[in-house]
């Protein structure tokens, strides 16, 4: 669903990262209105989340880097770094 030239994506996160995401769709998921062409990194900065706290994105069964540009409606899991090991 577009809003005035923007677009909607869904970001999911668990553990500590989830607290920073402030989910509003379900326990893990936040609906984000953003501009087409922005990278995950830029979207995270817009949300006030330090991109260093995200190891990679995971969408449709594959790993994407933080310079991935989401499409409208895309659901992206934000994977935090491993807690060591």
């Amino acid at each position, binding site marked *: 669903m577009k809003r005035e030239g923007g677009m909607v994506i869904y970001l999911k996160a668990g553990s500590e990262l989830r607290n*920073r995401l402030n989910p509003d769709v379900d326990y893990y998921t936040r609906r984000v209105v953003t501009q087409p062409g922005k990278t995950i990194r830029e979207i995270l900065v817009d949300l006030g989340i330090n991109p260093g706290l995200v190891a990679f994105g995971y969408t449709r069964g594959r790993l994407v880097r933080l310079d991935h540009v989401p499409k409208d409606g895309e659901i992206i899991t934000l994977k*935090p*770094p491993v*807690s060591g090991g």
Partner: protein
Amino acid sequence: MANGLAGTTLRIDLRNGEIKRFPTDESLYRNWHGGRGIIAKILYDEVPRDADPLGEENILILNAGIMSGSFIPAGSKVSFGSISPLTNGHGDSNMGGHLGPMLKFAGYDMVIFEGISPHPVYLYIDNEKVELRDASKYWGMKSLECEARLKKDLGEDFEIATIGPAGENGVLFSCITHDFGRQAGRTGQGAVMGSKKLKAIAIRGNRSLHVHDLKGLRKQVKGIIERTKVHPNMEPWQKYGTSFFMRWSNDNAVLPAYNFRTTYYPDVDKIDGDQLVEKCLITHKACFGCWMNCGKYTKAVIPGKPEVHLEGPEYETGSTCGSNLGMKDINHVAYINWLVDELGMDSMSSGGVIAFAMECFERGLITEKDLEGHTLKWGSVDDVEHFLDMVVNKRGIGEWFAQGTKRAAEKIGRGSEKFAMQVKGQELSGYDGRWAPGMLLSYMTADIGAHHNRSWTITVDIAEGREKVEGRAKIVVYLQHIRPLFDTWCICRLFWGELDITHEELVESLNYITGWGVSVEETLRISEKIWNLNRCHYIERNRANGRFFDYPPARSWEDKIPDGPGKGKGLTKEQIEKMLDEYYDARGWDRQGNPTREVLEDLGIGYAADNLEKLGFLGKPIPGGIPPVRGEKYKPKAF
């Protein structure tokens, strides 16, 4: 016993083959929780302070903890422990796979090995049948080769742990291998096992394990299964394991490259998780009772070499034997992983030793003549293979490197100590701490030398300020209590760290299993007690103030990160000293890094204070007293 314990402890005198069985002492588990905790207690009580780690007086302990095998998520681990020949202090290493649960299903909680066998043996356990069998036909075999052979000879349903030629030959960073690719890697447990002429352990059991409240445990575990099935982290974990981490580590300037010279590795895309899954994967592989299946069973295919199968490389091996050695092909990293697995050497320490040697070669401190006419260039698999052959067989200068980077640097001299990347004799695992002060402090103060399983703080460092050293110490102390708890319980901490299983839930599980009614606070106190006992033990064995041993290699403060996102970053010596001061204050130790009587008595181990006092290393009383609670749980600031 309906408390998660199998009921019998074995004590084996390898000198004469005597096998004694004792009822498992439940109070020992109540007070020390098992695994690393009981190992700490037994080593402290029984091993003479001047015992040679590779000599007759060292004790090797195999302990399956309190929760292994009990249907708890990832209840798969087992701990090996002995005085570490690398650090000359308490050493323990835990291992996933299926050995711990099988030990319990055979009816045993712990096996204690004393003395040295006159000839090679392996331990054979088949329920009540416990024998030391002649291992002469297996002695000399590589680890994975030996496991396959024992399974063929004894039965596929035996769980096997082996050492390789490295352990037999006393390479100090030798490991113990199991399940075709899981290791008790760190602290040189394989060298101790080899010094005892113990080649392998083979276990089969069909007994039932009884817990206090199976209904309650089952309901809890089923709930956790349902919850974690939809956890966002589950699928990426199942697909990539820890190998996905390489790129993040590089982007955030903590990936070790070229012997920790830099943290920027432009070729990381050639050796990361994507490459592993795309080019090498055969199957995902799980430990007992774990549905994260982070293990990746893979193949390494290099033209001119036979195809080999291995488990890995996971992040630690991918970094320490990948970017740290200048490798640019995932197959090469996998091949090196396979090599060290077969030879029976800890991959992290191996990576550290090889990288150190590569830098020595680059600087002309060792030459082709020293290397039997070979080179040791960054990125060369063939050079690594030849070098490891020299190390395992202790030929020429291989004998120096077989003792780890610390001792090798002492032999080579000429300033090489600066870039021997170790603390207390154990090589760093896969994180550079120059722009992650909490991580550096974690390495400096870990009881077993530079290992991250005690404390890992990189996201804290990123969130709180990577150049700020204040405030890290209390968090490191807290992590050093909670993370090693998993090594006492003998379960995998990745469920807690990655899938939001809370400490409270795990204590609930512990109580379903044991019926003890333990609290979260009590588990942290037990962990703190173990930590302090190991510190006292280390000081007593090494006869100097604790602070003396808590410094990182000089590269950590003399060399700033030269390029990449972390260019120019690094700590000063003054900042390192400041972090240590803050750490000791947080622990209730004096500024020399020695535990005080007040904190030891508070933890119920006042006898350790008496021992330190006799040697002149008891911590001086702290004006104002010790902190009432040591360690602080990290609470991130809101944005």
